[in-house]
């Protein structure tokens, strides 16, 4: 079919990915992650599976957590420690954007090679998933700001969630549930650590965390 809500939504996500490459503000990143969270958690509605009530509730819960709780918690962490709002890139912004484009293209290419479409009927689903994954990785590697790294981690999880959402119903919920739990707990712990880092070094620049080495 020509008009496909999922692909439209996913294209938004890809856009947000590009933004996340370009931006230099932590808040923006957080907002983006929240946006992604909301978007990807509503995707299951549009994927052709028949939604049971339980499934619906579950999806809503996902939306709640991904879209609101997690971003909020990070905001809280920030306000608690009035963290500097810059992401301190290792790779510059413009270079990052180029990287982003390259990543998206690469992602599309790869997903074309492994025919995941057979599993889920949507063209953009897999490229977006891979793009999110790699973006998360990229943020983890290319941003010295600890918060940016956490966000990168969340993006990765989002990507995996997308991949998982291509699964058939029988196994999907447990997967989603697991991811959700993991992200929640993980982000909570990370937030705690963030705060501690802030208190110890009164900065979240991971360049300070390079003392342990051989």
């Amino acid at each position: 079919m020509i008009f496909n809500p999922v692909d439209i939504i996913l294209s938004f996500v890809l856009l947000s990915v590009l933004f996340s490459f370009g931006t230099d503000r932590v808040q923006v990143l957080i907002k983006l992650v929240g946006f992604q969270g909301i978007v990807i958690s509503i995707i299951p509605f549009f994927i052709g599976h028949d939604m049971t009530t339980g499934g619906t509730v579950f999806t809503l819960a996902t939306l709640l957590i991904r879209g609101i709780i997690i971003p909020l918690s990070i905001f809280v962490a920030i306000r608690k420690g009035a963290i500097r709002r810059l992401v301190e890139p290792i790779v510059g912004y413009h270079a990052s954007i180029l990287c982003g484009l390259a990543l998206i293209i690469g992602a599309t290419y790869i997903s074309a090679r492994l025919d995941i479409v057979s599993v889920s009927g949507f063209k953009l689903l897999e490229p977006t998933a891979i793009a999110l994954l790699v973006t998360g990785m990229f943020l983890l590697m290319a941003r010295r700001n600890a918060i940016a790294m956490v966000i990168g981690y969340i993006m990765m999880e989002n990507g995996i969630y997308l991949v998982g959402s291509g699964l058939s119903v029988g196994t999907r919920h447990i997967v989603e549930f697991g991811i959700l739990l993991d992200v929640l707990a993980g982000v909570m712990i990370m937030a705690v650590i963030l705060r501690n880092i802030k208190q110890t070094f009164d900065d979240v620049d991971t360049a300070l965390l390079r003392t342990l080495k051989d």
Partner: protein
Amino acid sequence: MVEIVFAIPFIAGLIAFFLPKFLGRSLLVVIGAVHLTLSFRLWKNHPPAYFDQYFAVTPEGMLSLLVISLLFFLISIYTVGYLRESEIPSEGLFTGSMLVFLATMTMVTLSDHIMVMWIAIEATTLASAPLIYTHRSAASLEATWKYVLICSVGIAMALLGSVLVAFSMGQANSGTPLSFSALAGAAKTLDPVWLKAGFVFVLVGYGTKMGLAPMHTWLPDAHSEAPSPASALLSGVLLNCAYLGIFKTNKIMVAAGLQDFSGGILMVFGLLSILAAATFILKQNEYKRMLAYSSIENMGIIAFGTGVGGLGVYGAVICMLHHSLIKSSLFLSSGNILLGYGDRLIKNTGNLVKGMPRTFVAFFAGFAGIAGFPPFGIFIGEFCIVIAAFKAGFHVAVTVFILSLCVIFAGFANQVMKISFDETDTVIKMKESISMVWPQYLLLLTSLVLCFFIPDSLNQTISDAITAIGGGLK
């Protein structure tokens, strides 16, 4: 009713957060004992699991579980003494997370469902993070940060891998549950490409947790910064849990007839880890980091053995058992050394044999064991692995294996000799109480006994475990 085994410590852990010091300590030991007995009963009469599609009693799981509970019991005894000697902030948190950690690890060993396994392993990460941060120092904070972040990323990879494995089921058998046993059963019908991809991701993911090079980077930091009982747990059993994940996935691979692929990758990772360990042990200047790297080495050996297959798998399992026993004893001894000399650097220690003779015995015996000297079991393990590798004809690989073991030994021995015999003018700050030496002795003794005599039932369990992934004795 299998779940109770991890339910109890979980609840206890939650309680322990709020208990006063003394109660917390005693609770630790009590739960350890209870857990030990429970897991023994589990081992003796395999009861069915309540959520039987998520949990099951598998031989390889039982092996790790037994090791876990034995180690935890002894370590908890040690911990009591340790807590008495050293002052650490918010002890409740410490004991609590110890128990929760135990619970999560138990859950790993009992889980049969891919996702549950994954959740459990991630949970171990989160549960052990506070343990590493116990000392509240900048360094420990950094270690925790790296530990959590790297492991989470790795585990995320594992998750992706699991999902891909799920993909490999395709539409054909969407009915089958995502449990290892079921998948192993239906292995032939799985799509090999997805399976391979899944295995790669799972291996990298759990390998990160298991400490296989080049994903091992968090390990030395975490082990050196965590308080010794925690490091003992981390290196003694946590790594095994991660290994369990790989082991089970490998089971599917073997069942699907892809053991050459998986075996090859495992061997490569094994060798890489051993080489990495050699690199850093050779000129190490902190003993706890040294021990950590030696853990990496042993994980490498185990992975290598698993990859070799045949007798090698047997060797790998033997190595796993004995490494847990010996390495944890070593970490406990290193805890004594740390308390005694109050310094992490090797050059500031020395003449252990005079200063702390009891600890010296445990420490040196542990070293001999880890270095693969009889009468400790790792000797048998390495022997089997090497023999099997030759039998399978991986001559180059086994040459690298042996040579790097030599290098590691040279470095390790050098450091240990320094610690044990060099002159020093430090005055020992602690006295060796019974509860801080006997756990090590018991651990070593167990390894020693297991080197010469393995009870048939245990032997049966081992062979069950290894036959599943094509480990044969001949």
